[in-house]
């Protein structure tokens, strides 16, 4: 079993840890969606090399075998607001020129374990970490979601919302979750 390290997140019996063995992902990870597999098999490593994103894998902590039950790639992000002073007044708009965010670039669950709440648990872990154990400010989680009913339903169930309808006919849709809503609740206790 992996030894928990600095960037590991453990909730209950589940460990989310940085992915280092990308070859293993190529051999063993299949979420049933071609584009998503392609991302994790080929792009995730390159993105890591370029310092663009980090990929984490979820495993059951007591199982010795470190096969990835689920994968999630994260990148720093920002939600920029421009020309808002016309509406808010310059002083107020200057308070928060941008909202710092973490972006879920891609996430997927190994085929045999889909529809078993693992994806939601992984998002819960990410939410919890970015509220309780963050090293810098992070107000929002953003996601680049496939524009597919099943995927959008999943993110909506996890209380993500669309930024707008402008991308409703595109292949991907941008959504967000406001971590401040969670920080006001008792999950942190």
């Amino acid at each position, binding site marked *: 079993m992996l030894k928990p390290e600095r960037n590991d997140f453990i909730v209950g019996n589940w460990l989310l840890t940085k992915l280092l063995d990308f070859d293993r992902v190529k051999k063993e990870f299949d979420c049933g969606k071609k584009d998503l597999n392609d991302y994790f098999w*080929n792009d995730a490593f390159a993105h890591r090399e370029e310092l663009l994103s980090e990929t984490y894998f979820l495993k059951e902590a007591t199982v010795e075998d470190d096969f990835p039950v689920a994968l999630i790639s994260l990148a720093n992000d920002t939600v920029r607001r421009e020309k808002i002073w016309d509406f808010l007044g310059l002083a107020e708009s200057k308070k928060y020129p941008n909202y710092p965010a973490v972006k879920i670039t891609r996430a997927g669950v190994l085929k045999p374990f889909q529809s078993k709440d693992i994806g939601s648990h992984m998002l819960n872990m990410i939410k919890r970490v970015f509220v309780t154990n963050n090293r810098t400010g992070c107000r929002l989680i953003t996601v680049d979601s496939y524009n597919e009913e099943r995927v959008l339903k999943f993110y909506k169930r996890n209380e993500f919302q669309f930024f707008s309808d402008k991308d409703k006919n595109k292949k991907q849709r*941008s959504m967000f979750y406001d971590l401040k809503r969670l920080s006001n609740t008792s999950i942190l206790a």
Partner: protein
Amino acid sequence: MALAIAATPVLRGRAAKNFEKKLRQDLRRPSKLTATPKLEEARNAVKAYAKAREK
């Protein structure tokens, strides 16, 4: 090659104002972590899968 990661939209003018308003309104209804009632089932499935791989 997989689809490129789409850029997060830049919110301008009215869209930015509406977003701001939405954030403020939503703070009145705090969020909870999503319920995961099938997680124990998932855990057992993962253990069984790992066991089967040992063979």
